[in-house]
């Protein structure tokens, strides 16, 4: 019975090829409906928590008032964007953000790559595992805790100043000193996430064909040469993808990190877009102007991703995110 029905179904299908093409969507839904049901919660999430907030950027072009809502608030065009560029505060936070962003790309981003290459050279499995575990540990700490540890570590009675004391050097209040803030953000970022960042890279390394190394050894290449001429080039596509994902967040620094490391004394160098938006937008309720900043941030991020993606594709076959 079933078979016959099936065959009938097949025949019908063959005959109505044209119609299937037209109504392929409806038929696909009817045939594979469970798949459509499955994605439903995810799609609802995507719309509610990603796309509606994205649509909310219209308030950057309005004088948004809470009691009027998005529908009734008056449109003001690019007023808030213009105001931004005339506002000295904005240039200050933009400069601070760009500098730390640049430090992140130059000093923080390469560290996991180097670490992964070094891990890979360790032969003793037990030693390697324990090392990796130690390097992963800081990632399990929240920024509140890392900031707490950092304040403690660098305080006047902390480890660093005690060691300086042994050598007869003066106590430095690192956390209250403008000149150390950026380097502290760099070091804490590395401490927390460099080890964790090796995970994806080590996975990429593990997929390298061992024959490559054997061939190199036959040619008499030593380990350093093998690392630089085989391992590194072969994980480059992964590095490029990670770089592209990073560059899009160039101006989106970790709010949690900066906010927890800031002290009133380090505001001039450490107040960045996200902390500024939090203070002026969320706390003081100036929604429209701070949304304009957010739009600016996202657009810069998008431009950077597109530009670098194009560059990646030019230099690497099948490179880039898309």
């Amino acid at each position, binding site marked *: 019975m079933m078979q016959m029905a099936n065959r009938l179904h097949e025949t019908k299908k063959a005959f109505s090829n044209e119609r299937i093409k037209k109504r392929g969507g409806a038929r696909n839904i009817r045939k594979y409906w469970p798949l459509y049901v499955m994605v439903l919660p995810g799609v609802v999430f995507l719309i509610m928590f990603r796309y509606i907030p994205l649509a909310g950027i219209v308030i950057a072009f309005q004088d948004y008032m809470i009691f009027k809502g998005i529908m009734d608030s008056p449109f003001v065009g690019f007023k808030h964007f213009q105001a931004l560029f005339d506002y000295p505060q904005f240039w200050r936070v933009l400069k601070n953000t760009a500098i730390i962003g640049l430090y992140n790309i130059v000093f923080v981003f390469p560290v996991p790559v180097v670490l992964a290459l070094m891990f890979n050279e360790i032969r003793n499995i037990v030693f390697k595992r324990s090392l990796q575990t130690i*390097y992963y*540990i800081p990632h399990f700490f929240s920024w509140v805790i890392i900031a707490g540890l950092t304040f403690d570590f660098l305080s006047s009675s902390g480890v660093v100043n005690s060691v300086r004391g042994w050598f007869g050097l003066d106590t430095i209040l690192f956390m209250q000193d403008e000149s150390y803030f950026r380097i502290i953000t760099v070091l804490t970022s590395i401490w927390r996430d460099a080890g964790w960042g090796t995970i994806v890279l080590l996975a990429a390394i593990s997929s390298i064909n061992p024959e490559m190394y054997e061939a190199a050894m036959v040619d008499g290449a030593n*380990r350093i040469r093998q690392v630089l001429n085989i391992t590194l080039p072969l994980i480059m596509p992964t590095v490029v993808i990670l770089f592209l994902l990073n560059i899009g967040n160039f101006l989106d620094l970790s709010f949690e990190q900066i906010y927890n490391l800031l002290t009133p004394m380090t505001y001039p160098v450490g107040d960045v877009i996200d902390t500024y938006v939090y203070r002026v937008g969320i706390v003081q309720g100036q929604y429209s102007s701070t949304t304009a900043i957010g739009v600016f941030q996202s657009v810069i991020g998008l431009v950077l991703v597109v530009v670098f993606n194009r560059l990646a594709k030019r230099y690497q076959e099948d490179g880039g995110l898309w």
Partner: protein
Amino acid sequence: MISSRESRGDLIFRYTNATILGLISIVMLIPFVKVLATSFSGPHAVGAGQVYLWPVQFTWASWKYILGLEPLWSSFFITLFATVAGTFLSLLITALFAYPLSKNEFKLAKILMFMIVITMIFRYPIIPYFLSLRSYGLYNSIWVLIIPYTVTAFNLIIMRTFFKGLPKELEEAAQMEGCGYFQLLFRIVLPSSQAVIATLGIFYAVGIWNQFMIPLLFIEDQSLYPLQLKLREYIVNVDMEAGGFGEILPYSNETLRSATIIFATIPILLVYPFLQKYFVKGAMLGSVK
């Protein structure tokens, strides 16, 4: 295979490399060990800067004090609930979303993937995000600690890639026996995906346990404070000691803070060794693309 004869240069390289990594790992652990030591030390030794990597004037006093703090426990349980519920919900919804996306017969796969990748490339600004979530009634709600993480684009893509890499034969056999897609996912696919589930489980759990920004934005009610907000209060703002003026206490702000830091970290740290076995394999899924 690797030849047993190793050149002098390679030998030096290997040992230098191992030594450097070893030394850095020790340096990385120092702040943590110091805080641990401080939490078990007497206030005078700590105040005089005598404590480095080992407790001085050993005492349980700080631990006894913080473990008796009612608000700390209440924050702890809020965070624990959010982490367990959030991780479970996130894994469930991510798996349900990723599975159809790994199927060629699913017509919407391309469009949905495109929609997901866009959210990675063009970030929503924080203010509209805040306003939207508030309009959903998530302000001062414990659900705000759980729901916003439910689907993370990066994790979703990893899971989809993993599903795509699973051997087709198992599913086909089950399909012949008349299994529907739901049965395939829950009986066949998920049981063979322990590695990726453990990996993403850690990602979600650590993220939810440590989240600070979302609660800072949305949770105003002190009785709903998750651990990280409570910690910030203890670490940065408030004097924790409750003793009267001039009283001699067996602990100080510093020792209490240290104990609190350890208290808030140990539970999430404990997750790692349990899942490590799978985690190492899960990381092998590698290619993000």
